């Protein structure tokens, strides 16, 4: 059987299929703790990337008529993306493990031949100490690239560094 079709870059003009509503996962009336997940995408020169597509997927709260679980935001002229969602709770991991609350992230842009996968965890969660993925990253500085930090009330900051000294940990999904 043939292997999976090859990826190609999303390019700079994916906004043709952009639906701005998709950046708000609470638009159908979801209940729960509403949060903003925002950050800046930087390239290897530390310059913001103004043409990226940031997608998120979360399995908690469960998908329903009021919560799609999936969202998409462009990065603006300053490289900033912004999504509104419901703060996830813990979800089951492999075996008997429990995973700390997290949001899966997929970054696409001009210059990326394939999407880059990562995860945003939340700094205030005690379960981070036992989360299988976080604990599999040995260097604390690298691990911290996956942890969103609190900003304004209800807002969590998650900057993404595609390359360089502060490079985000990207996952081999």
């Amino acid at each position: 059987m043939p292997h999976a079709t090859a990826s190609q870059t999303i390019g700079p003009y994916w906004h043709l299929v952009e639906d701005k509503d998709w950046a708000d996962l609470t638009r159908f009336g979801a209940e729960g703790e509403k949060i903003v997940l925002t950050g800046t995408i930087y390239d290897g020169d530390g310059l913001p990337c103004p043409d990226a597509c940031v997608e998120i997927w979360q399995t908690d709260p469960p998908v329903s008529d009021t919560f799609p679980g999936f969202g998409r935001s462009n990065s603006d002229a300053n490289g900033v993306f912004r999504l509104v969602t419901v703060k996830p709770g813990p979800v089951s991991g492999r075996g008997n493990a429990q995973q700390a609350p997290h949001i899966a992230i997929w970054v696409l842009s001009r210059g990326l031949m394939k999407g880059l996968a990562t995860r945003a965890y939340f700094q205030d969660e005690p379960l981070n100490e036992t989360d299988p993925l976080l604990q599999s990253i040995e260097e604390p500085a690298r691990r911290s690239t996956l942890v969103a930090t609190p900003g304004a009330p209800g807002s969590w900051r998650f900057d993404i560094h595609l390359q360089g000294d502060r490079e985000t940990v990207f996952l081999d999904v």
Partner: protein
Amino acid sequence: MTDPLPFRPLTAGSQPPYDVPGYRSTQRRFPRQPLHPIPHTITETTGPQFSERMFPASVDLTCNKTGQPAIGERIIVAGRITDEDGRSVPHTMVEIWQANATGRYDHPGDQHDAPLDPNFHGAGRVFTDADGFYRFLTIRPGAYPWPNHRNAWRPNHIHFSFFGPAFATRLVTQMYFPGDPLLSLDPIFNGVPDAAARDRLVAAFDLDLTEPDYALGYRFDVVLRGRAATPMED
């Protein structure tokens, strides 16, 4: 609780690397650290499902901006989406976007000096049927220049986005046209190391899809990742 069945790893050579020296924009954007391994959990083995009820399809790009017909050569693009085991991927959303017949995107960022078509936006959304087949109508996109290197031109292409059953099956790619002399010069197309994998990005002219007195048909089949045969060891 039973562990979710993971998706199999992507095959070496069939996917492009992040670092493609001939594609200049990769050079400040590719990660220098190796990707961190992650055993698939429910986060990776599930994914968004879009219903046509909530996300209406738009399958005729030749007239979906104003209702008036766009200029250019009408074409029909159709194909089947399967997984790596040949099973169809039913009822999955496919997003498409492209330049117009002159090679210009209806997008403020595109400053290429070629005319816009007031009746062509170049975006659509289709769903596969129960057997994984999709089909849409559009205008054959033109080639366009880009600043990658001197006299660089992208081959004619249509951008595609696929979801499939899981976040792990997400795929964004481009469909090309057979016989395009620009293909051998394009660093994005040639960023895929394996020649057979590149060839599968090139649609096939298909007389059976072609409609008499209306439009040529092109077939573009797509394969999304399949599940691993047995659960991987953690």
